[in-house]
Every structure is written in C-alpha cells, then in structure tokens.
C-alpha cells in the first residue's frame, strides 16, 4: 500500500513538473505610472522602462480612451492587460517579446451527426479538425456536437465506427448549425469488432469509457446464439461474473448491486433474465453501450462500482425496416419507420423465448436450478418501444418504454400411502418478475454551445411468487376424499422510482466543456411482503385465519434522493486533459438523512508516438442496496434504502494507467486500488419461510451488517482493431477481500468473486467478404467457496436437542477448480437487394469443460473428499439466423 501511495505522488509531482516547464519564464514585476496616456503611449513607455520589446499596431487601440495607471511592483503582463483591456487585440509572449495581434472573432459550429440513410442520431461520432491546431469534438449521447472556433477555414473529418469517413471543408464566418450525415459502411462494420474508433479515441485522449461494440457483439459466440450485452461487458479486463454469467457483473471486486445500469438514462434494477444467463437488452434496439469501471464522471452517481450506460436507437426517419432473428433459445423482431417522415420515428422491438425444452433438459440432469417437478416451465419476454419526435431543429422529444418479464412455474405432485389412506400432496410454485421502464425526454439546443436534456423517468422492478400446498386424503375406510391441508403464500418485493432529471452541457471551446445538472428521485420500496393463507377444510381461499394475519409483513418505505453535479472536461495545455467534477447528493429515508460529496478527478497526458499516461481519484456513495440470502443479485433479493440503521455504502478508487495506441493496435496497463469504506451484507437466519426461495424480509434492517473491503489489481489489454484479423487479450491480476466484525470472527476473507487471474482472449478472423470466424477463450482462477472439513455434535449434558456443527475454519476457504471455456462461431452475412441475411453457427463451451457452479460435499458416504459438482452450461450449440428487410 505504502509503495502504491508513493508511486501515485511521484507521478503527480512529475505531471506538475511537466506543467511548469511548459510555461515561459516569468516576466518581471515593475513600478509603472502613466496618466492620461493613449494605450500606445503607455505600451511604448512600458517597453522603454523594462527593456522588453512590445510589438503592436496603433490600429489595435484606435477606439480606446486614454488610460490612467499607477501601480507598484506589479507583474508586467498584468500591466499590459490593463493597458490593452479595451482593445480587440490579443497578445502572446514570444521569445521574450510581447507581440500583439488582432483578435479573430470566434463562432460556434454546432449541430447533430446522423445516419444518412435512416436519419438516426449518431452518438460518439468524432469531428476532427485537420488543420494545424487540431482538436475537435465528440457528438454527445444525443448526437449533438458543438465547437467554438476562430473565424477561418477548416478541414474537418467526421467519422464513426461502421460509417464512411466524411471530410468537410468549413468556412466559418458566423455561427453555423449543421446536421452532418454519415453513410453506413457495411464493409467496415464487419472488420472492426472492438473498442472505440481510432478517431474518436484520439480526440478523447482518453481510455474511458469502454465503448462496447455492437457490431462486434453480434459476432461473439454466446449460449444459443443470443447476443448479450452483459456477457460482452464481462469480456473486459476487470469485469467478472459468477460461473457462466450467474450472479451479475462484478467490477473490480464490487457486488452486482453496485453497478449503475442505465437504459435510456433510467436505472435498471434487474438487468438479467434466467438468473443471469441472458441480459434484458435486446441488442437489435440498442444504439450504444458504454462501460465505466469505477472512474466515472460526476454526472453518474448512486452506485459505487461501475456504470453501464445503454442507449436505444431512435428508429428510421425515412423508411420502414423490419428485422427478425431466431436462435436456439429466443426469437426477436424489430420494426421501425417514420410515423411522420423526417419528423417522427417509431422503433418497436419484441423478444421472447422458447426455453421449456431446455429447462426440462437441465432439470432431468439435476443441475443447479434443481427443478424437481414434472410440470416445469420457464419463459421470458422483452418489449422495447421508442418514439422520437423532431419538433424543431433545436427541440427533440423521446418517449422510451421497456417491459420485460420472467415467469417460472413448477408443479410437483406426491403420493404418500399410509394406513388411513392415500395422501395426494401438490406443491405449486409460480414466480413472475420483471422491469418496467419509461422515459420522456426533451432535448433542447438552447444556444449553439449550450445543450440541455430534461428527462422524466419511471423504473419499477417487481418479483412476485405464490407457493401453494394442498394435501388431500383418500380414506381407506370410507372411500371419501377430504382436504387435509391447504395454504397459499404470496411473496412480493418491489422497488419503484419516479424521477425528474435535467442536464446542461456548455461547450466553451474545444478545450473546455462543462456539464451540470441535477435530479430528484422518489423511491418506493416494498421489501418482501409475505402473506400466508391457512385454509380450514371447507374454507374459501379468500378467508384468512387470525394466525396467518400475524405472519403478514406488509412494509412500505419511501425515500427521496436528490443530487446535483458539475463536471468539467478541460485541456489546459496541449496533450493534457483534466476531467474534474463533484457530485453532491442527499438522501432522505426512514428516520435518516444522509448527504455526500463525491469528488471525481482524472488527469491524462497524451505524449508523442501514441503513448499516454493517466491517474484518477474517484469517490462514490450508494444509498440503495440489494440484500438476500445469496447476495448474488437474484431477482428475489430485495432492494432496500439506507436507513438510520443501514448507512450508505462508500467506496473510493485510485487508478494509474499507461497506454499506447497506433497503427490499428491499442494496449493499456492500468492499476487500481479500491477501498470499500463501508459495504453491507445480509445475515440470513434459519427461520426461512417457505416462500419460493426468497428470504423473509422481516426485520431486514436489523439483519444487515456493515464491514469494509479492499480490491487491488492490474489490468492489461492488448487490442488489434483493424485488418482482417482483429481481437483482444484482456488479463487481470487482482485480489478482493471483505471484512465484517459480525462474520468470520471478524477476520478478513476473500470476496465471493475474488479471482486472482482472469484472462479473456477474443479473436475475429474475416475469411471472406461475407464470412468471418470468431473465438473466445476465457480462463480464470476458481471462485472461493466455503467448505467445512471437521464436524462435531453439539449437545449439552442432559439436553434433548442436538446439532451437528460443521467447522468452517474460514469463510471462502476453498477454491473451485479453474474456470476455462472456448466458444467458437462462424458468422455470415448476405445482401440481396433490400434483403439482408445473417447467420451464426458455432459451439459454446466447445470442449465441454465442466466448470462447477458450486460443489456439495457428500456427508453420508464416509469417503473423504467425495463431492458432487454442479455445472450450469455444458457444451451448447450456437445458432442464430436473422433477416432484415427495408421497405
């Protein structure tokens, strides 16, 4: 730690030394007196007095009144500033001389970048100035750009991944608003599979955020051929998931609930289907996805580990287009087109699954989910819709909607023969869960260099589970059937947000962009409502007896979260960039008020020959927490607010990196230190009610315990981004621990997803113009789990009760075997007029590595070390066929 801290300060010192050297030597301070002089006279007097040449033209000061200056021991340049204050000229210190020259008027070049064919806005496109001064702008998350430049003629190059580069000559003699149209380039789309476009990256001088390439995503072999954004995110260095995707994303040692996942700027509380096998994002509707691994700017807050910002497409403003895709597990369809040509576009996407044969396949093999019934069914669906309305050239409205749902049903019948008769016991579990998300947004270009976005947001996640048990007895003696037991239990957990958010972006000049804004969110939580109906024989199902009422937990919580932020992106000197900001937030919950100031700072230097170095410090606070028995972000785990007893989680992270980019290659090495000043864990108890796998939430506040954590690591990335062969190698060496006074006897233990080594190799080879091959190989240290090796029986003398006690010498004391897996696929694309076909054919887990999801020790066999290993995803075929048609 001490070495890390020293290294950080040495780096900062070197940076500032460089900054100082970049300045000219200071000019002297002098006494100066000049009364009722013209500025020209004053400058001549000053030059004579100091012996320093001052070069100017009288015309620069022809409109200026006389000046009166009397100063003592004042810096020379300050005096020059006073003298020339009224002039339209500026000056520079050059070789020890002060040289005045005429100020050029400055104008703003702004507008949108859009797809020439569809009219959709393009996010993250680069507008580079090719003249000597360089610089440029990146279109923002709504496709807007703004550059303030001096009057003149400029050569620009506009580019974006998958589009032809568009050279522009700009004659700037007044403010200009221009919509730049880029032509799609399908050839290029197939070649580049990862990362940002080289132009965009060069402009940003930055290695964050990671832009997840959607064209590359479709080529990656994934289970069933279902392109998945979260699985692609997990291929990045420093990002991990549980085995085969179960358990959500874990970024640099963070919990899954510590990721802020946004869909069109709205927080998503459950980003997965099928317990993590698939994400909720229908990639046919996604426009961009950016991932920050902890070093996110101040405009993002509310989570402590990472941000995944996903934006959906606007839809086609000119022509109708349909897309249908079918894979082994799911099928999706997308329809888009103009409602009013060039003014209003609609995009509708739908995805559903035909998962049941696979569920039966898994259930018969006794897999992780352990579906024991013979009437098992599972399915999910997604629906996305987006309406974009161009009201004026400067006003746009967006209405986005998402609805997704998972449904799991398991019915199990059991016959028990007794002397009194035959009992028929029927268990029925029906669980439904999903997100509903809506956003109404208004973009306004207030001024050519001031952009605003105001969003009304709604997000809801609900999990409902009903468990029924009915027992009937067919009496041997009477031959009559009677109901012996009948109860139904409803479990529900809910979080619902309504919020208003507004953001402003001011583009001062190519070297300075300022963002500020705020939001107000009202949260409603229902952390685990349980209602149990015990029915008497003959009672109607709606009647509840008095005992069951007492077991009902019906807690509803409100909380208000507000935040304001300011974010600046500055290039104070050539090749230097500073991103600095602060987010101030307040949280008003049950009997508690919390506030936090979260500073964010990042400094980057881009040197010659493509090298760059950076360092950052970021602090984060989180007021919402997901808790449950498993703590791996399963849908029945509860979202709860910070309260007086449950304080917010706090994390800070320091990063230091070195990168090189050039000639189609990109490499970077980044070290991080992440301190979890406060993290939470839910302490489960043994009185778990039969609520469909969910934990009874009663008394949850008193069952949360606080602790600390630490995560350190080095991430290495090597990417080849152009040419017929592209790919990446991402390696992470890391250690992540937790420490809770109330757990593991207060000792430090490895975090559940701590993996010392994590390697992902991704290769894309273009075989023909229409065919490419992709392979992904993942390798990682096994996850830690807790296994006991010793036991004894607890019984006090004379006591009636006994308990077998398994001695866990430490939590997470054993590692699962190494995780590794190879996925391969062939991807083809054909075009016949207005019809485009594409297919993917391959194998997931090609050599059928049995990666264990968990291990159960066999305690009955008497054989040392005998255990059963459960694997979630064995070898699986990958298949997808998609067709697009443009009307």
């Amino acid at each position: 730690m001490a070495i890390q801290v020293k290294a950080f300060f040495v780096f900062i010192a070197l940076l500032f030394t460089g900054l100082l050297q970049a300045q000219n030597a200071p000019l002297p301070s002098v006494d100066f007196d000049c009364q009722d002089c013209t500025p020209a006279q004053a400058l001549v007097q000053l030059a004579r007095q100091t012996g320093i040449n001052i070069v100017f033209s009288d015309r620069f000061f022809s409109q200026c009144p006389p000046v009166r200056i009397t100063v003592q021991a004042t810096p020379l340049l300050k005096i020059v500033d006073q003298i020339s204050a009224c002039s339209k000229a500026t000056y520079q210190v050059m070789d020890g001389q002060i040289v005045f020259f005429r100020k050029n008027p400055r104008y703003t070049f702004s507008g949108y970048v859009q797809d020439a064919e569809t009219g959709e806005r393009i996010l993250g496109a680069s507008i580079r100035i090719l003249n000597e001064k360089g610089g440029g702008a990146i279109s923002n998350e709504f496709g807007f750009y703004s550059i303030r430049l001096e009057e003149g003629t400029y050569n620009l190059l506009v580019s974006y991944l998958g589009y032809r580069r568009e050279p522009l000559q700009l004659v700037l003699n007044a403010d200009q608003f221009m919509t730049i149209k880029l032509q799609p380039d399908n050839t290029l789309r197939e070649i580049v599979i990862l990362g940002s476009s080289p132009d965009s990256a060069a402009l940003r001088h930055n290695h964050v955020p990671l832009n997840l390439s959607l064209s590359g995503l479709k080529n990656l072999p994934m289970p069933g051929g279902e392109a998945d954004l979260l699985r692609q995110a997990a291929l990045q260095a420093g990002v991990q998931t549980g085995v085969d995707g179960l358990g959500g994303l874990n970024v640099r040692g963070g919990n899954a609930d510590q990721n802020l996942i946004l869909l069109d700027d709205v927080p998503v509380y459950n980003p997965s289907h099928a317990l993590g096998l698939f994400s909720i994002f229908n990639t046919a509707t996604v426009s961009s996805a950016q991932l920050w691994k902890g070093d996110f700017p101040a405009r993002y807050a509310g989570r402590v580990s990472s941000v995944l910002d996903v934006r959906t497409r606007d839809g086609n403003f000119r022509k109708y287009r349909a897309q249908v895709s079918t894979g082994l597990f799911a099928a999706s369809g997308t329809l888009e087109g103009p409602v009013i040509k060039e003014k209003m576009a609609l995009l509708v996407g739908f995805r559903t699954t035909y998962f049941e044969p696979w569920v039966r396949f898994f259930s018969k093999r006794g897999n992780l989910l352990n579906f024991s019934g013979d009437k098992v069914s599972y399915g999910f669906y997604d629906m996305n819709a987006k309406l974009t309305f161009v009201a004026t050239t400067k006003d746009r409205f967006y209405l986005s909607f998402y609805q997704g749902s998972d449904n799991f049903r398991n019915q199990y019948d059991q016959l028990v023969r007794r002397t009194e008769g035959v009992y028929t016991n029927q268990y029925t579990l029906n669980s439904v869960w999903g997100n509903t998300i809506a956003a109404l947004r208004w973009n306004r270009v207030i001024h050519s260099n001031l952009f605003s976005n105001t969003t009304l947001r709604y997000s809801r996640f609900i999990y409902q589970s009903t468990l029924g048990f009915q027992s009937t007895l067919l009496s041997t003696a009477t031959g009559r059937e009677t109901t012996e037991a009948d109860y139904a239990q409803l479990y529900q957990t809910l979080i619902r947000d309504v919020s208003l958010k507004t953001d402003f972006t001011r583009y001062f000049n190519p070297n300075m962009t300022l963002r500020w804004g705020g939001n107000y969110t009202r949260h409603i939580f229902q952390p685990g409502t349980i209602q149990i109906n015990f029915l008497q024989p003959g009672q109607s199902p709606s009647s509840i007896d008095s005992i069951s009422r007492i077991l009902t937990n019906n807690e509803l919580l409100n909380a208000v979260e507000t935040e304001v932020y300011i974010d600046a992106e500055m290039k104070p000197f050539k090749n230097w960039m500073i991103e600095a900001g602060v987010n101030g937030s307040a949280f008003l919950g049950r009997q508690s008020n919390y506030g936090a100031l979260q500073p964010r700072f990042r400094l980057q230097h881009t040197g010659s020959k493509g090298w760059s170095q950076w360092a950052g410090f970021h602090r984060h606070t989180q007021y919402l927490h997901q808790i449950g028995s498993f703590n791996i972000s399963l849908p029945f785990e509860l979202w709860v607010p910070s309260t007086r007893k449950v304080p917010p989680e706090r994390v800070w992270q320091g990063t230091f990196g070195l990168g090189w980019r050039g000639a189609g290659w990109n490499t970077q090495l980044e070290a991080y230190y992440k301190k979890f000043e406060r993290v939470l864990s839910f302490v489960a108890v043994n009185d778990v009610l039969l609520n469909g796998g969910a934990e009874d939430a009663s008394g949850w506040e008193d069952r949360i315990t606080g602790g600390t954590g630490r995560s350190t690591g080095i991430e290495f990335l090597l990417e080849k981004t152009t040419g017929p062969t592209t790919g990446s190698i991402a390696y992470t060496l890391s250690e992540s621990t937790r420490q809770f006074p109330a757990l593991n006897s207060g000792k430090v233990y490895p975090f559940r997803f701590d993996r010392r080594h994590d390697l992902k190799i991704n290769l894309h080879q273009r075989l023909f113009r229409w065919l490419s091959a992709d392979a992904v190989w993942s390798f990682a240290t096994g996850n830690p789990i807790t296994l006991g090796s010793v036991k004894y029986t607890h019984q006090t003398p004379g006591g009636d009760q006994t308990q077998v006690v398994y001695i866990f010498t430490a939590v997470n004391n054993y590692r699962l075997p190494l995780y590794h897996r190879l996925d391969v696929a062939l991807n083809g694309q054909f075009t016949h007029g207005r019809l485009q076909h594409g297919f993917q054919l391959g194998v997931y887990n090609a050599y059928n590595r049995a990666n264990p999801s968990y291990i159960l020790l066999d305690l009955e066999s008497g054989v040392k070390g005998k255990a059963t290993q459960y694997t979630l995803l064995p070898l699986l075929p990958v298949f997808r066929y998609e067709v697009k048609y443009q009307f």
Partner: protein
Amino acid sequence: MRKSTHVLLVATLLLASCARDLQIDLPDEPARIVVVSHFTTGEPFQANVTLSQPVYAVDDEGTPASVDITVSNGGQFYTRLLRKLDDRGKIFFESSAVVRPETPYTITVEIGGYPRVQATSSVPPFNGLESFRVLDSIRIENLADGKKALRIPLELKLPNLLPVTGRYYAFNLRHEKYVYEIINGQKVFDYPEEADTYFVTDGPTLSLLNNIAEPVVLVNENFWNDNRRKLYLDAIIPFNPATDEVKRIFLEWRTLSEDFYRYHLSLARQGTNQPLSDPDAVFNNVINGYGNFSGYSVSADTLIIPN
C-alpha cells in the same frame, strides 16, 4: 461415416452431463477435543466431551475413555468434573462444587494424545425482566383439527436502562394445565400436564428470534435497538374445553454471556448454508479445540391464567 457420426453424437450427449462426482482434496484436520458446557449460578458444572471428526465420518464420535476435566478460578484449582451417566445412559461430566456468580472460570480438558484445551467464561450479571404480564384479553381460537387453543397475549418488559452492550437474552415458555376426567357428568381432576408453549408474533420480531439447540429461544441483540424494551408474544395453548384447564405459564428468562450468545447465534445461522450463500464461521472460545464453555444467569416467572 454414418457410424462415426452416431458415435460423436452419443459421446457429446454423455459428456453434456451437468452433475458429476468430484474428489476434493480436503485438508486433513487433526481430531481435537470438543467440550460443550453451559453453566449457571448455584448449579454444578456439567460438560460433554467428545472428539471432532472429519465431515465425511458416519460413526458416532462417542466419549473418549480417559478424560481429565478441571475448572480453575484465577489460576487456582476450583473443582474437578467426574464421569457420570444420565437417565439415558449417556456419559457426561459433572463437578461437585457449584458455580458462583460473575466469577471467571477456566475449564481445562486433557485427553492423552491430544492437545490440552482451555476455555474461559463467567456467569454474567443478571438483567431480569421488569414485568411479565398478560397484555390483553385471552381469546379462544378454533384449530384445524376441531380442537381449540387459548391465545394469550403476553408482554415481556425489560428495564429502561439496559447495558449499552451485551444485551444477550434468551427465554423459554412452558405451561401447565390440569387434565380432568368426566365421571358421571362431573369433572374429576386426573393429572397435571406441563409442556412447551408455542407462540406467534409479528414478522419483524420473529425474524430476530432464533431456535437453538437448547431449550430456549435466542433473542437477537438488535431487537433491543431503538429503545425497544418490550417483547410481545401470543402464547398458543391447545386444549380440550371439556377436559383441560390451563393453569399457569412459566417463563424462564436468561441473561447470557457473550460466549453463549455468539456461539448459538453462529450455530443458528448454519441453517442457511445454501450452496451459493456465504456460511458463517462458528464462534469458538475453546483454545486448541472446539465447542463452547459459557455461563448464563436465569430467573423464573409464573403467570396464573384465570379460569
């Protein structure tokens, strides 16, 4: 070609099994002495002593043949525990001297061939209830089997001034009812019957009560946060109106040492060792061994149930 395709297909399906046996290289943990002893004021020390076993062992651990158990106080020998048999013929160890309140005791257990084990604890200062009462009217509930049950709302109140830390309590409810015989239409007393009393309460309270492998219910220390001093329970006592009369409810209230509390809380949490959740390590205050040596103080209250 066709044959090889079939072979490949069958091989693929066989390999695609999701659950398979695995041999884990579990570390060889040497057997250690296990001592389980809870003690309270005025009673002799009692202990069960066994040896730990590998998790895969299927045999009963039994009591070692030669065991020497002593209890000391402040480094001075206090008493020795001798081998005895309980009513079921099971071996345990008991002292002749009795426990004194708030005195730190150290138990030492020696068995040839095993490291000597020691543990220290004491009976904590007693922190009794301020009141124990029937809160509201007693109701009669109809049960599913046609029988009836008394539902008795109870309030257990602790004093307002509780210790800042160490709020470790447990309780047990029992009741006594008289069973009558009907002879010639007359109720004739037959015998008294004493049994454990079931209770129900609200969800948040229930979540902070743990059933443990002792004849008491453990109250989570967090229950007493927020200046909460009262514990509300509804005692449920099944009875036959024709032949039974519920007479009394007995409450045993224990103030626990931290050693007792932490040990049993950690055992209670072992119940949720689901495959994907983190189990907690068992609290252990026995040096070089396993088990628990801990004290508690106890009081008894009785409520008379009106006819």
